[in-house]
């Protein structure tokens, strides 16, 4: 082993090929120090660590549970029209109420009150359902998906049909003549008087198809729907006589193009996504659960 003469101090520090005990010690110390500083920083900022600091996005920590600044602000706004002008007393009041609520919620978790209180149970069910639903609508459905949905449910995206129809009822023997007169364009009132008929009054003015269906009943509505503007139906026999439908105007449902229907399509698409997510949540919970059912109920 040959001892090397110690080189000049300045050069030795930078020369990586020579061993320098003091350099090693100092670098190690610096590394450890840096590590400590980083760890400390992480410790005081990471979620879930016990700290004595209230993070900037909270107004209080209750057993390490933050009370969010946005929620505090919302509550304050419910109390004061302009939260900037809320008095310190108001702020304290709101904060105290929120801390109290958090304490009680934490206590409720300890006591597991949810297990017995039916209202809490149902609120918990709703909350989990809502969570699944919220996950379903985090972004805008892309336009190809919306168009696909529109194509699949085309019949939903049409205007509701509209009709102006009168329902006249005649003694069966007079129906044929009455029909001829109506078809020739005679006014319904005149024809009704002449042939001993009357307007049933089931319809009045312009009606959406769904309303006309309710007013006329299924059989008469089906006949009415097939009539074109200006047409008169065949006689339709019923307990009270022979019905003649006079169609003054029939506007069948018209398809909306995709652009026109887009907002509606988006709403329906989102509703369908929500249902899908909730169904998936249901399936997931059931799959991972161990549910035993009594023999007599299997």
């Amino acid at each position, binding site marked *: 082993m040959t001892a090397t003469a110690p080189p000049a101090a300045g050069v030795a520090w930078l020369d990586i090929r020579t061993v320098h005990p003091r350099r090693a010690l100092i670098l190690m110390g610096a590394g450890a120090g840096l590590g400590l500083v980083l760890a400390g920083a992480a410790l005081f900022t990471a979620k879930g660590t016990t700290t004595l600091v209230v993070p900037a996005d909270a107004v209080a920590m209750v057993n390490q549970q933050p009370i969010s600044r946005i929620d505090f602000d919302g509550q304050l706004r419910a109390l004061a029209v*302009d939260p900037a002008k809320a008095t310190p007393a108001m702020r304290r009041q709101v904060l105290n109420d929120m801390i109290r609520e958090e304490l009680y919620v934490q206590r409720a978790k300890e006591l597991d009150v949810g297990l017995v209180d039916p209202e809490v149970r149902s609120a918990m069910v709703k909350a989990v359902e809502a969570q699944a639903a919220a996950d379903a609508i985090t972004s805008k459905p892309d336009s190809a998906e919306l168009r696909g949905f529109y194509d699949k449910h085309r019949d939903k995206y049409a205007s509701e049909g509209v009709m102006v129809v009168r329902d006249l009822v005649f003694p069966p023997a007079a129906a044929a003549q009455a029909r001829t007169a109506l078809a020739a364009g005679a006014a319904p009132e005149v024809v009704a008087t002449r042939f001993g008929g009357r307007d049933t009054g089931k319809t009045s003015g312009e009606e959406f198809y769904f309303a006309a269906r309710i007013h006329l009943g299924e059989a008469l509505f089906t006949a009415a729907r097939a009539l074109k503007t200006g047409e008169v139906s065949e006689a339709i026999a019923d307990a009270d006589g022979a019905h003649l439908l006079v169609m003054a105007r029939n506007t069948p449902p018209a398809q909306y193009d995709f652009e026109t229907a887009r907002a509606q399509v988006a709403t329906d698409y989102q509703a369908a996504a929500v249902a899908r997510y909730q169904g998936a949540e249901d399936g997931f919970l059931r799959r991972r659960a161990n549910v035993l059912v009594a023999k007599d109920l299997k």
Partner: protein
Amino acid sequence: MLSLGVVLVAGMAQSQAREGRLLRLDPDARLAPDQRTAALAAGRRVFRAQCAGCHGPDGRGDTGYGAPNLADRDWLYGTGAVGEIEQTIAYGIRSHQPKGWNLADMPAFGAPRPSAKERLDPLSPGDIGDVIAFLSARRGATASAEAVARGRAIYQGRGGCYDCHGGDAAGDPAIGAPNLIDAVWLYGDGSPPSVFRSIAQGRRGVMPGFAGRLSAVQLRQVSLYVKSLSEAP
């Protein structure tokens, strides 16, 4: 190396302190000019990434989708305070988030049962035409006097419109019911057929909530940015 670490940590601490200062301010407080410039620039980045898809790159909305123009001074919810905007962005509208806005939907008056929540009877096409006449008269357009009178009766009576849109039809920002007598439309172009569709088919626009997906400081930054859009001359 040591100095690099120190700079890194110091930088982190400084930006955290800056964000902390922004968050601890009242949302509507006046910001120092450089603080405001930095917040708006960051808010704009968030907006481009998260919001532009629905509200458009310039925030001017999309009436085909029902995404409102954020660059005007017309607000569906509240009065345009930054704190209110922040609330909407954090929890959304009809988003299924428990803290989101979800107080009223526009009923579908051209359906057998217009509203699942409210007891309302459907309207006939003529009724809807009359209400539209009433509303356009309120906006100063000419319309048949009889139709306007019938429309007013429906608006204030069995239509129940007054209950949500207000006796003066100027909307109710507490429940997100739009003003029906101004020139701003959430859906379509305000033409009678487009207004007819809103009334006959109903509306319930959805805005997702961003709490949990954006940090508190990002929420504040994008809220300030949205507010700034409506302040541009």
